[in-house]
């Protein structure tokens, strides 16, 4: 009886050590991953002898969480696991990548919740793995859909495309920057070079992109001819024939190099081969 204060002190100490702050997020939903995370200091010190085991236990818990029904809270909690795991093991690539991947919660359209958390986790990962293509690609996607900064996203693709094992999709997306600046020859050269590399995957994608770039280059010339026609006649030409009749377009050039029929609509040139037009960085 003399020592009955011991369990009390031990209980209070445990409470202080294990959780000194309220749980960061709602934890009352049954069946939802709960961020019952140790304080980092405690995990680093007392659990040090078994730190890899502890990290992997939390990692398995996070993976189980990914399998649960998706809610904004679940995704938010998964991000917290990501921050916790990467704090304990900054080299844990999978924790950055997979947990950032599942963190944004789609509200439909281009609207997302938890996007900032995902971006923060990816940026934390990029500080460790600055050249990792998967992380950089995810960063580019998040820049596009969360921050709506397509220029920054395309710049990210440009950086990815400089790497020797860059995926075809990233090279293709990187050309949007050149399209935006009207540097078609450079974009076509970039694609041709990538296509010429041995064991390059995604050749069809690159080939299609090259055709798009060649057609877009021609359509930009047609756009200029349409504008000159408008200035000359005082009216916006409605057909390709009207541009030809104004002497601003060669009559024999009715198809693009890939067989698409050229047309004029709403003051812009179009090709039947190309759906719409390449809009540069606004649509990479």
């Amino acid at each position, binding site marked *: 009886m003399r020592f009955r204060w011991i369990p009390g002190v031990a209980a209070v100490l445990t409470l202080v050590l294990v959780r000194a702050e309220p749980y960061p997020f709602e934890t009352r939903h049954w069946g939802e991953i709960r961020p019952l995370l140790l304080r980092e200091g405690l995990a*680093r010190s007392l659990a040090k002898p078994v730190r890899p*085991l502890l990290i992997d236990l939390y*990692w398995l818990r996070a993976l189980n969480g990914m399998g649960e029904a998706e809610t904004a809270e679940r995704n938010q909690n998964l991000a917290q696991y990501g921050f916790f795991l990467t704090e304990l093991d900054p080299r844990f690539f999978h924790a950055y990548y997979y947990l950032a991947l599942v963190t944004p919660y789609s509200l439909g359209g281009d609207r997302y919740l938890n996007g900032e958390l995902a971006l923060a986790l990816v940026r934390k990962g990029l500080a460790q793995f600055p050249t990792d293509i998967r992380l950089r690609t995810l960063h580019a996607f998040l820049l596009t859909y969360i921050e709506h900064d397509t220029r920054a996203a395309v710049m990210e693709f440009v950086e990815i495309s400089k790497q020797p094992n860059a995926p075809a999709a990233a090279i293709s997306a990187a050309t949007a920057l050149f399209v935006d600046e009207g540097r078609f020859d450079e974009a076509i050269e970039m694609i041709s070079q990538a296509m010429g590399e041995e064991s390059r995957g995604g050749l069809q994608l690159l080939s299609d992109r090259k055709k798009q770039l060649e057609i877009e280059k021609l359509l930009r010339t047609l756009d200029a001819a349409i504008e000159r026609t408008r200035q000359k006649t005082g009216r916006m030409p409605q057909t390709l024939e009207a541009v030809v009749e104004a002497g601003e377009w060669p009559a024999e050039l009715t198809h693009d190099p890939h067989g698409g029929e050229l047309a004029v609509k709403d003051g812009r040139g179009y090709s039947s081969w190309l759906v719409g037009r390449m809009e540069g960085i606004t649509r990479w």
Partner: protein
Amino acid sequence: MMNGVLTIALNGFRESRRNRVTSVLVVFALILVFSVTVSVEFTFSTFDRVMADFGLGVIGLVTPALALFLSTGLIPREIERRTIFMVVARPVSRSAFVIGRYLGNLFTVGFLLLVMAILFLAQLAIMYATTNFGTGIHAPHLVALYGLALEMVLLTAVAFTFATLSSQFVATLMATCVYFIGHMAEDLFNLAQRTKVVPFKLLGTGLYYLFPNFDRLDFKDRATYLDATPMGELATATAYTAAYTVIMLLIATAIFERRDFK
């Protein structure tokens, strides 16, 4: 002298083998190590990592527990049951008795560690041979197991020293504290270097050198990423363990020589 030490060591090994608690712990440890295979079923893409971390983590949990439990119980139990008088009455010095008991304990825990290590390595090899994932057995896995063996040698010596001067409960408590402090030794050192208060700095640095640095023997992190450990680091870790163990055993024998069992 050597024959006496060896006889005591082998007797200790046999005694531990007959101990039911040891048997239960062994079965528990083996189940845990086997369960590593199951843990891999709950993950994706990180099979090697989970396998290595779980395997080494489980061994890293069980080995110190066994070392602590077995080391701290032997001598206090001998004293409690009065069987110590039968030993000290024989022409065996008290130092030989302590060292013999220590070695016997080391055989027991070392044998269990060996069994767990073989199981773990077999799991790695089987996973590599039968599935598409897994990288098999690599040097960092063996280095991590070697680190655990060094930790066991040192922790057993520390626990033995405490057991020579106190009861099993107190010895276990103190040895457990030293185990955790030893794993935080580097943090203690870094903390001491950051403070501007000179006495704290000296105290922190002094404690760092006083307590065994178990962090130095922990290579489990490296096994996770298959990072190589330089031979020089392994050699100094081994020398450190050997030196610290010798000091601990010298202290233990000095205490035991002077101890009154009445």
